[in-house]
């Protein structure tokens, strides 16, 4: 076992009052792969961002190669030998491989840049990794996997000895993953330590030497990988007690009103089949990037479908735009409030009115202010949106109240299917409960509710049935009253086994 090269102890970090990390520790040795595991929001990314100098810690000590560091910033972290290979690659797509590798530290000749020297060095590090890419290629023309190799080569070129890889395989095909693992092996031989973050637990047996598990911003355990079983790992990851109480109501499950058959839309929506019934909330669980948001967008007509049928009350619908979906009685409260949910420059009233202008305007299209005010008052009082006036801009509201506007604008019209995508993300507990109550009201009214959420406790507490997705496919369907977080997590990490297959898959080039 090699020397300890990174020691992080008693690390704490809070963001505007929310404790993201609480007394966490992490240790990395020379020549090992340390897998850092945990659910979404467990604090993995925050921890590695502290190590790479993106965030400053509130408390705790960091030692790199035995030297203690105060507040790290990205430059000092890099000088200490830490490099991070980002989940979203940070490169200038229009520049060449070489230009990217030497960005900000170009080698100058007497008068101009010494391109020959830079290219030679770039080639040297690429060769060292055994990667065959010309330094003159334009980065944007290369597949994501090669771009990743360039990031790694760049890290080597600044003599990084601590490499952090955040979900490096999510966009790679099986062949590319094998290539990456080969390179990780090489890096280990050269004495690099690698912190490896991934949700794909099946990868661990190929590369992980040790495992650190985190949950809710706390350190849970560190152990050698061979001493752990998969069940044990999942248990550590989700072993969270459900303290909150959820206001689930019991309803008679009614008839089937909505059905999705063989829906396909890109890599993250593959052969989706499910039905919704009256008086039932169906939770959609899964890890981030499992394709749940993409599924809602395909159903709602935001993104094009490549195949599949959508049936409502026994009739086949053809939905090619959100307008079609709304007319049919399907509505969506999207995940990203700021991007998809709100017109922030418009008033609260105008936001609530926007999807209901057909009602407010009638046939002539001339808006009735009286109707608009009535409708708006209804939404504001039903959801208790807290604002001094509905004429205020939507972006003056707090997150929770913004979310209520995003949701509330749909409730004043008669819909048959309501889709909520992460409706409680980033809002306070009080607002959460109001959103839950609202879903329950819809359920009581006989409206089918599709509830996408990454918070397992709330899915378990509110939904009647849970559909689990992983990597664009439905991997399980569970009764919310019978199942456990562990069981959901098992389905949520049921990736198609990309590894160990001899024949290379053809897909995977669609992204990047």
């Amino acid at each position, binding site marked *: 076992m090699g020397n300890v090269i990174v020691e992080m102890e008693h690390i704490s970090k809070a963001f*505007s009052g929310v404790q993201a990390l609480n007394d966490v520790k992490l240790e990395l040795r020379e020549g090992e792969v340390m897998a850092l595991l945990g659910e979404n929001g467990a604090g993995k990314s925050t921890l590695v961002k502290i190590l790479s100098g993106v965030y400053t810690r509130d408390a705790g000590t960091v030692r790199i190669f035995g030297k203690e560091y105060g507040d790290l910033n990205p430059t000092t972290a890099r000088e200490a030998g830490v490099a991070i290979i980002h989940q979203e690659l940070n490169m200038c797509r229009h520049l060449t491989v070489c230009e990217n590798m030497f960005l900000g530290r170009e080698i100058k000749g007497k008068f101009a840049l010494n391109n020959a020297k830079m290219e030679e060095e770039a080639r040297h590090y690429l060769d060292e990794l055994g990667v065959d890419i010309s330094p003159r290629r334009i980065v944007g023309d290369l597949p994501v996997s090669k771009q990743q190799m360039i990031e790694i080569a760049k890290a080597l070129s600044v003599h990084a000895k601590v490499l952090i890889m955040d979900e490096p395989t999510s966009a790679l095909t099986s062949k590319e993953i094998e290539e990456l693992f080969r390179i990780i092996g090489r890096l280990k031989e050269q004495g690099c330590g690698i912190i490896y973050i991934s949700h794909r637990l099946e990868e661990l047996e190929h590369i992980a030497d040790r495992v650190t598990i985190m949950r809710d911003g706390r350190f849970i355990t560190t152990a050698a990988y061979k001493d752990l079983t998969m069940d044990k790992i999942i248990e550590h990851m989700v072993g969270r007690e459900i303290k909150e109480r959820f206001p689930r109501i019991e309803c008679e499950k009614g008839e089937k009103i909505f059905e999705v058959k063989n829906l396909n839309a890109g890599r993250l929506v593959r052969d989706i089949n499910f039905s919704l019934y009256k008086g039932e909330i169906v939770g959609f669980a899964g890890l981030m990037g499992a394709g749940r948001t993409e599924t809602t967008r395909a159903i*709602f007509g*935001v993104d094009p479908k490549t195949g599949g049928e959508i049936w409502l009350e026994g009739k086949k619908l053809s939905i090619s*735009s*959100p*307008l079609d979906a*709304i*007319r049919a009685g399907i509505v*969506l409260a*999207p995940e990203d409030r700021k*991007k*998809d*949910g*709100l*017109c*922030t*420059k*418009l*008033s609260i009233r*105008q936001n609530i*009115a*926007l*999807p209901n*202008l*057909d009602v*407010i*305007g009638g046939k002539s*299209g*001339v*808006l009735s202010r009286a109707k608009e005010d009535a409708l708006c*008052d209804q939404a*504001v009082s039903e959801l208790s949106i807290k604002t001094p*006036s*509905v*004429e205020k*801009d939507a972006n003056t509201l707090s997150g929770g109240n913004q979310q209520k506007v995003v949701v509330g*604008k749909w409730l004043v019209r008669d819909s048959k299917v309501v889709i909520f995508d992460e409706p409680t993300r980033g809002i306070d507990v009080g607002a959460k409960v109001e959103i839950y109550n609202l879903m329950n009201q819809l359920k009581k009214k006989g409206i089918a509710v599709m509830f996408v959420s990454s918070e397992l406790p709330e899915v378990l507490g509110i939904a009647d049935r849970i559909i689990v997705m992983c990597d664009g496919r439905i991997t399980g369907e569970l009764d919310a009253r019978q199942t456990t977080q562990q069981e959901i997590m098992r389905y949520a990490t049921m990736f198609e086994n990309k590894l160990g297959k001899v024949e290379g898959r053809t897909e995977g080039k669609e992204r990047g």
Partner: protein
Amino acid sequence: MDKKKSVFGKLGEVKGLGSSLTAFVGLIVIYLVFGMIDHKVFSAQNNLNLMRSMSKYVLIGIGQSYVMITGNIDLSIGSVVGMAAMISCTLMSHGVPIAAAVLVTVAASIAVGIVNGFLVGKFKLPPFIATLGTMFVTRGIAFIVNGNRNTDNIASGIGKESADAFQKFFYYGKTLGIYNTFWIALITFLIFFFLLSKTRSGRHIYAIGSNVDAARLSGVNVVMTTVKAYTVSAICSTIVGLILGAQAGMGNMDAGNMYEMYGVAAGVIGGISPLGGAGLLLGTFGGAGVWQILENGLNMIGAQIGLQRIVIGVIVVMAVLLDVVIRNGSHISRRAKKEA
């Protein structure tokens, strides 16, 4: 919520009213200052002239404001003005009756608006590029229509009487003591003001300018809304083209040159956000007034054309700079509060 708010309380809540009124206040101040320097500014005839010449900017401003509120820009306005003047006058100088000539002109201009709308809304071209293209094409058409030369006097085609009627209707005639041109602009303004503030389509125009994704997810037809905005712009430009034709009694190939920029200036001075989603047409009216009174006043006091340009340029930048400073100021104070 208090339902019995006073009229003023309600008005105070209307967004963008502040910057619109600022434009009017500016208009009055500038007017008074110039008047004090040279009393001729206050003369009845000058006031009538002022109202007539500001009408062109009002119309152009309405069109450009519609497009700017959607978050786009229309560079083809000036060329459409020129094309409208050339098509209508060419037809009339060849004896085509006024009504028919106007109809053909309107149809041609609307076609340009629709093309702009589809290029930007449907094919997602950057509006700057799309309308730059149509700007050149329409100006080219304006040249070609009469074989690369200005038209003959329209009286040579439709006769003196009809030509007089046309010119009076759009430019030289008065109704209730005020030039018809102003009435045309005012009526057009009222119609488009109503459409923008009181109808579904108008609300959609604000929505796509504020957040096109959110608007689409709320069921707004983004393509049609964009087409509508560009069509309004084209219609306003046509009217200006007809006015210029009537003023000269003939079609001038260069008519309307640079007008798209005057439209931007009128809108921006009146508080229309060049980023979309915000502003009132009332402000554009005021902005057009500011623009015209500046031009007229500087002219009256004998400022050179170069100086006029400089003053106008500075005013436009100041109007936006003020807006940015105020907004950033509030941003900074909000951030400071958050951190405290």
